[in-house]
């Protein structure tokens, strides 16, 4: 028995389709007779019988696909050899897998998978969001600056968004966001410190109180638009009055300075011009008028500036204020002062005159809106009744929060303070 297997008839053919059988089972064939016609991807091949004998079995019907290695025909050629078992195994029909199918050269994927019919139409996707024209470099810039370029109105050719457009948007948005921020500067603006070697410098960490000053000053100067007005007061009367009363006060255990007079004068002026005793709520755009007068006094201590305040200074006499000032000053210097005495000030006076200074541009203590700087009282020649005379002159500097106080207000406030300090009797009468 001869097991005739379908062989590779050349060029890597893996399968063929049986087109026609020339013989049927039981027919006699001679070696070289055309057994059948097989159609492959390349050719229609006539398959000759390899042996002479009687056909016992055909490997498939017309139209069947036969793979290389499968039995094409069993021919009894008189040999006793039975089909070997391994041959049988080998001849197990290969499934007509889509992967294994053959081409002429190489392997071509064969599949009956059906793809969608062509319609030349397609499903509409969502309408894409508006896109602007811009050069890639402008797009990169927008990305770097965190600007959504599609929201920028372009001013370039054909409405293209230019780099300048992006910079402008960036500027205006950052202005808006600063305005919206709480008026608190939590971090110093970062900048690179110049390089120094340890031999050149000594780095010293600042004290806690200095840290507070740093924070407060940065807030004050970055939030409040300051302006300062200055004036010189002829306080000859006040000087004379104080000289007269100094001994009396001392006998009561009080060291009488000019400060209680200034405080009283300021409180009276505050009552006339209440905006100086207010705070400004920028976010809500409201002025908060305070109906209490806690007058702070900047005290220079070895550790730094401390500003305790005299509560309800309007309700206290000059002597009482003088007494309290003495206590506050001691407590501040000893660092024994209670926290509440440092809080809720409404207006501050700073006396840099004790260091011999004349004018200053004092920094307002946020959230207050004004501060009065007092310079050293000195004898100066002035013109009084068309004569040059010697007078005691007190220089004052008034810084104001220009958001809610104008220069005119400052001038009027200063005039009122001047009135009281040049005529100390008014202070006593009030």
């Amino acid at each position, binding site marked *: 028995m001869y097991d005739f297997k379908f062989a590779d008839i050349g060029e890597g053919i893996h399968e063929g389709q049986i087109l026609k059988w020339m013989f049927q089972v039981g027919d006699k064939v001679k070696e070289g007779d055309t057994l059948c016609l097989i159609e492959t991807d390349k050719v229609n091949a006539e398959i000759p019988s390899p042996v002479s004998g009687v056909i016992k079995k055909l490997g498939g019907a017309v139209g069947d696909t036969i793979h290389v290695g499968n039995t094409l025909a069993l021919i009894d050629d008189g040999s006793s050899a039975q089909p070997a078992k391994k041959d049988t195994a080998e001849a197990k029909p290969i499934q007509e897998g889509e992967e294994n199918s053959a081409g002429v050269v190489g392997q071509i994927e064969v599949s009956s998978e059906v793809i*969608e019919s062509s319609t030349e139409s397609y499903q509409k996707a969502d309408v894409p969001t508006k896109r602007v024209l811009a050069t890639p470099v402008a797009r990169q810039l927008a990305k770097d600056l965190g600007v959504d370029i599609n929201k920028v109105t372009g001013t370039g050719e054909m409405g293209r968004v230019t780099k300048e457009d992006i910079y402008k948007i960036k500027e205006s948005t950052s202005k808006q966001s600063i305005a919206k921020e709480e008026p608190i500067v939590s971090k110093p603006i970062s900048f690179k410190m110049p390089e120094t070697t340890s031999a050149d410098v000594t780095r010293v960490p600042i004290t806690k109180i200095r840290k507070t000053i740093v924070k407060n000053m940065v807030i004050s100067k970055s939030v409040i638009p300051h302006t300062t007005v200055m004036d010189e007061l002829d306080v000859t009367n006040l000087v004379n009055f104080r000289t007269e009363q100094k001994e009396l006060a001392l006998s009561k255990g009080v060291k009488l300075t000019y400060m209680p007079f200034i405080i009283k004068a300021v409180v009276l002026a505050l009552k006339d011009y209440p905006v100086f005793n207010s705070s400004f709520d920028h976010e809500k755009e409201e002025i908060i008028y305070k109906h209490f007068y806690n007058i702070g006094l900047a005290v220079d201590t070895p550790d730094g500036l401390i500003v305790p305040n005299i509560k309800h200074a309007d309700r206290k006499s000059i002597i009482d204020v003088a007494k309290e000032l003495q206590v506050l000053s001691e407590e501040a210097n000893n660092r024994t002062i209670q926290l509440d005495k440092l809080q809720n000030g409404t207006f501050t006076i700073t006396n840099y005159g004790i260091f011999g200074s004349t004018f200053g541009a004092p920094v307002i203590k946020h959230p207050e809106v004004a501060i009065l700087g007092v310079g050293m009282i000195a004898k100066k020649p002035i013109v009084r009744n068309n004569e040059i005379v010697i007078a005691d002159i007190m220089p004052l500097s008034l810084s104001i929060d220009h958001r809610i106080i104008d220069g005119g207000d400052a001038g009027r406030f200063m005039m009122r303070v001047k009135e009281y300090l040049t005529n100390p009797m008014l202070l006593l009468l009030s």
Partner: protein
Amino acid sequence: MALINILEAVNKTLEQQMEKDPTVVVLGEDVGYEGGVFRATAGLQQKFGEERSFDTPLAEAGIIGTSIGMAINGLKPVAEIQFSGFMFPAYNQIATHVARYRNRSRGKYHLPMVIRMPYGGGIRALEHHSESLETLFAHIPGLKLVIPSTPYDAKGLLTAAIKDPDPVIFMEPKRIYRAFKQEVPDEEYIVPIGKAKLVKEGKDITVVAWGALVREVEKAIKLVEEDGISVELIDLRTIAPLDRETVIQSVQKTGRFLVVHEAVKSFGPGAELISIVNEKAFLSLEAPPTRLTGFDITVPLPKGEHHFIIDPQRIAYEIRKVVRY
């Protein structure tokens, strides 16, 4: 309607055109008696006789030279080059005569002829059987170059090519000859040459492909859609003349561009497409126009070919890269 694959579509189109137009003839190596190595011309000689479907010697220059003479004299030859890699002996005929006859004769003669050739890799073949030589034809003025990716387009484009009064190179992606079937109308119809097909609309990126890679891009799209990326896919269908408008409009909308082709990278079709995008859609670009192509090497033999073949994973990777640029 018939449910057929690309190969069957080519075969049926040739049969239909030979039936309708007695001047259409097919010729090439093994084309007649055997019906072609891939069976594209199977049954034509039996049906139309040896004068209209015939075998030629293994001489590509002769196949094309003969076709030129036939075309000048009123026939419409559809010549088959067995594999596009075998076309080099005919390249002189194609570049110096086929492409120029209308111009050379000042419009007196024109060559209504089609040159079919299977192209592309991915079938584990021998050397000279896997090339993608689009550039060699698209670069020659006077030639049209068409590549279908579906049975429907294969019939419509081949019909258009046969009816075209001038020479058309018709490259067939043999890797997908039998890979899938599609409903194709029995009646004659045309898919216009020079018009790309918007396969799928999307928002984030324009991907241009043709031939066997259209299907690979479609697979890749499924992968990237999981990441929420919306891809617009254009099947170019005609390489020359390029449908610039469709490509540019799409890129102006999506802002991103990826071209995927089997042909090697340097001076390939992708270079031309990217140039067009830069020239015409520059102000819309969100990312550099990008190409995913064959490497600048001879397509490897079967053992190493999988390194060369562009698969959906590589396409998906490239799409993500461009979108996230």
